[in-house]
């Protein structure tokens, strides 16, 4: 079941169209990556989902209901550009934001205590925010976002400003939230984290959706039958006798091994390649080159330019 459906959403500002006919379905209890170059319209879309901005046309449904302001407490949003009141005490401030989300004071206190302990910032409760490091402030913001246990969480660049240890901590928390049943919409330029976390992705470029679906399936679609084979033996002799079913893209030598990058043509299989290769030597390894999200991203966005016209 889809927790969030975005139907034909368009939004224009004075001088440009920010979103054009966006359709998206976000399945429940999954991590959904919203990707796109700067200025593609991601933040506008996220603001529409958060009921901060209204779309010019189209609609957003949360569990089948048209989005309204009562849904706000069911969504947790960590904006990309985020800040806290510098002069306010950390704990007091977290409590304030929690109460704005509709939690009772007692409830908020109990939960905050748990999370402050868990993120090891309990001793900062009575310190002013301006005394906290950026990473610590980010932790507080993250806690405030998830504290009211929303069904839908929206993280815009959640890892910016975190060191690798805290990034890892945050990733674990995000996976934990997913395990508990929350749906996570996740916007980032950090492709490694997309590969690691996301189940589904959507790619937005120039105000339009150009790709969406299951991450694994997308990768399958975009793989191009290219394999790296590392091999000990007489490579030259082999390549001279090679049939037209293969194309050698590049060859490199390292530590006495030869690595060749092959593109399989005419629906040949890797087994056929191996059979042809075996008489000339000994195979050390064989890997299929699966395109990274990064590759797909760059390829699609670059291809998108001439189409625009």
């Amino acid at each position, binding site marked *: 079941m889809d927790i969030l459906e975005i139907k034909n959403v368009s939004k224009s500002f004075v001088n440009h169209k920010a979103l054009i006919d966006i359709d998206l379905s976000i399945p429940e209890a999954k991590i959904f990556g919203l990707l796109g170059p700067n200025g593609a319209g991601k933040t506008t879309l996220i603001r529409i989902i958060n009921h901060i901005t209204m779309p010019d046309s189209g609609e957003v449904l949360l569990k089948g209901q048209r989005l309204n302001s009562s849904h706000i407490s069911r969504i947790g949003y960590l904006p990309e550009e985020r800040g*806290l009141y510098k002069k306010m005490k950390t704990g007091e401030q977290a409590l304030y934001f929690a109460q704005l989300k509709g939690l009772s004071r007692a409830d908020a206190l109990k939960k905050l205590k748990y999370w402050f302990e868990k993120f090891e910032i309990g001793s900062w409760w009575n310190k002013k925010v301006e005394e906290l490091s950026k990473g610590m402030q980010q932790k507080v913001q993250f806690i405030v976002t998830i504290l009211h246990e929303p069904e839908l969480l929206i993280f815009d660049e959640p890892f910016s400003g975190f060191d690798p240890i805290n990034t890892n901590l945050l990733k674990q928390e995000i996976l934990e939230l997913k395990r508990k049943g929350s749906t996570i919409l996740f916007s980032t330029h950090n492709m490694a984290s997309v590969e690691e976390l996301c189940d589904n992705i959507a790619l937005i470029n120039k105000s339009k959706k150009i790709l969406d679906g299951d991450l694994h399936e997308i990768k399958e679609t975009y793989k191009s039958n290219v394999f790296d084979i590392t091999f000990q033996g007489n490579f030259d002799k082999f390549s001279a006798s090679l049939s037209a079913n293969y194309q050698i893209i590049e060859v490199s030598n390292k530590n006495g091994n030869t690595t060749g990058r092959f593109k399989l043509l005419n629906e040949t299989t890797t087994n056929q390649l191996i059979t042809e290769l075996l008489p000339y030597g000994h195979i050390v390894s064989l890997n299929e080159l699966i395109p990274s999200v990064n590759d797909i991203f760059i390829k699609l966005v670059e291809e998108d330019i001439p189409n625009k016209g």
Partner: protein
Amino acid sequence: MSKINHIIKREYLSRVRKKSFIIMSILGPILMAALFIVPALLAMMDTDDEKTVAIADYSNHYKTSFKDKEKLKFVFVNIDSVENLKLNFTKAKYYALLIIPDSTSANNIQLLSNMQPDINTKMYINSMIEGKLRSEKLLALGIDETKLNSINVNVDIKTIKIKSDGSEQISSTEVIMGVGFVAALIIYMFIFIYGAQVMRGVIEEKTNRVVEILVSSVKPFQLMMGKIIGIAMVALTQFALWIVLTLTIVSVAQLAMNDAKVVKTPTEQMMQASNVPSDMQNMDKKGDFLSDAMSTLANLPFGLMIFGFIFYFLGGYLLYASLFAAIGSAVDNETDTQQFMLPLTVPLILSFVMAQFIIQNPDGPLAFWFSIIPFTSPIVMLMRIPFGVPAWELILSMVLLAATFLGTTWLAGKIFRIGILMYGKKVNYRELWKWLRYDN
């Protein structure tokens, strides 16, 4: 609704707890009390040494004319020793040397001193000589001085207001002017100070990017209203603190001084120092004025004035604060606010500048229009209320003010909603107009 309460609470507490608020709350009344107390204190501490003025009277005409008074003595010196005295003036310990030439015309009288003689001494000497010459001239003309004094009249017009039921009420124009002016000044100050605080608060949230987190929980309008109401309560708290503290300080100080000595007000001091003739009449007038002032104060429409003050303070504040909030939302930092501030400050300053003309003619057309137009009425109407304002004018002015602040709040809300999420854009009036026309 509970969300807006949380916002009000935060805005209120974060400001009331600030050191600057506490300092201002204490310093304000001390400064005000100082205005009342310091002159009296200074007068009390007036322990000037006794001054002795040496008189060299070449005319030998004024032997009996100089009466000593407290801290001012006169000594006649031998005219032969004058040159010597001049040479050794600092050693002689005289405050001044008065030289009266040998002539009855009283010209060329000189007062010599090694420092600038103070005005009281000079005036006193003047009056002594004038008094002497005057009596002589009267005598020469055959006019009886006591008869002449008896024709001196002193006119003091009492202003008495006839109320609608025909009863009369003593009122002092000066007191009414003072009360109206003070009320207007306070409203003017509070609108400026706290309106600017609203603006700064919005800019702070915007530059800190707190607003991004806030708007995912609350509506921009709630945020704006929460801030405006919270700060209004800070203003009222400060105002109440000032009144309480000022009264406390003044009454404590008065008690302390009453114990020490009967205090003379600065005015009384002045009168005594110059020792103006017809002292008694003055004292009478003064007593009259005081009792008139008291009865005027007692007869002021206090209920209406307090209601008017609260209404116009809140109305004026809401009107301007919402516009200040809109400005804060439209800019990225305080330096960009200049171009938008001008249209707000002009009517405020204008109404204050016009105050002196309005107060001279509180029923004139200038006063009428300024007290009806909502952008100036909070300040101007307060000056008119003590003089008495026709009910329909008051009601019209209040209705217009209420309607206008609802309107400006609505408009400001539209700008605010867009402005707080807009960064890095130089906003001008055309841009604001576009924001106003967005539907959502």
